[in-house]
């Protein structure tokens, strides 16, 4: 399937003061290597949030240009807003390089997920079509088996997502911001 056009995007979560405080608590109790990288990324977010959002114009985000919601609505069109040069310089020392991000991903990937697939399939209803009046899509069911493990992994990967966005020199467009448009 090489050399074919398949493009996508992912959207993490907003990090406010309360969440940042919680991430610090989680990092303190995490395995050593995880704690090290989480603390680095927490500091990165703290430094980044000291200044306001970029005022540069955005360009349409290819990840959301042709996507839609379950009830058939088009997903909000999002913009990729680049960071100002001054901001890039200001946060430069706090944002991991791409190769460092790969290492961080590998470390965080070792964390227990805290969830398991139950083996059941849920039929999620979709708008009917002439050919498929009872349209649906099959979604494997998952359940949380270790909430603490899940919370730590989710925190680690949300920080990793922020790092990825800042490494791309762009304003992180979060899940919350995307759906509030």
């Amino acid at each position: 399937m090489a050399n074919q056009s398949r493009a996508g995007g992912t959207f993490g979560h907003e990090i406010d003061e309360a969440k940042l405080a919680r991430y610090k608590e989680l990092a303190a109790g995490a395995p050593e290597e995880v704690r090290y990288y989480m603390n680095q990324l927490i500091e990165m977010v703290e430094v980044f949030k000291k200044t306001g959002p970029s005022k540069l114009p955005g360009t349409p985000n290819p990840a959301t240009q042709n996507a839609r919601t379950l009830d058939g609505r088009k997903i909000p069109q999002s913009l990729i807003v680049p960071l100002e040069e001054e901001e890039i310089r200001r946060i430069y020392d706090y944002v991991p390089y791409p190769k460092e991000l790969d290492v961080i991903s590998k470390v965080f990937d070792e964390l227990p997920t805290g969830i398991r697939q139950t083996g059941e399939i849920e039929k999620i209803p979709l708008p009917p079509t002439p050919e498929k009046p009872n349209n649906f899509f099959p979604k494997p069911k998952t359940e949380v088996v270790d909430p603490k493990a899940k919370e730590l992994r989710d925190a680690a990967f949300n920080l990793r997502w922020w790092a990825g966005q800042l490494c791309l020199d762009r304003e992180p467009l979060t899940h919350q911001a995307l759906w509030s448009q």
Partner: protein
Amino acid sequence: MALRLSTDTRNKACDAQVDDIDAGSGAGTIQIRTGSQPTNVGDAASGTLLGTLTFSDPAFGASSTGTATASSITSDSSADASGTAGHARILDSDSNIVADCTCGQGSGDINFDDSTIVSEGTIAISSMTWTQPIS
């Protein structure tokens, strides 16, 4: 000289492949998972399921010069788990495996702007083509 397929044959082959995604009484899906693709396409699922995106029905338009283009793909607006997208599995609505592929950031068969997925966040695939090569 290698075996080469005519454009008409490529179109028929491509259409047959993507039509498999539409089998069953519902829509086909793309499961995004961590880790590498299973050794064989038909092997049991591997890695952690990060999210499920849904094809339109039909999933793809008619092929032209051996390539079909996907209609809108429904995002997963509440990902199941956090992790790094490593591979994807494409299934019909009866959960039969049609294909699998790699995922990556700036690489892979599905190229995400960021392959990091966060639980309850959004995963979007904005474009997908499927090509039957000439040989």
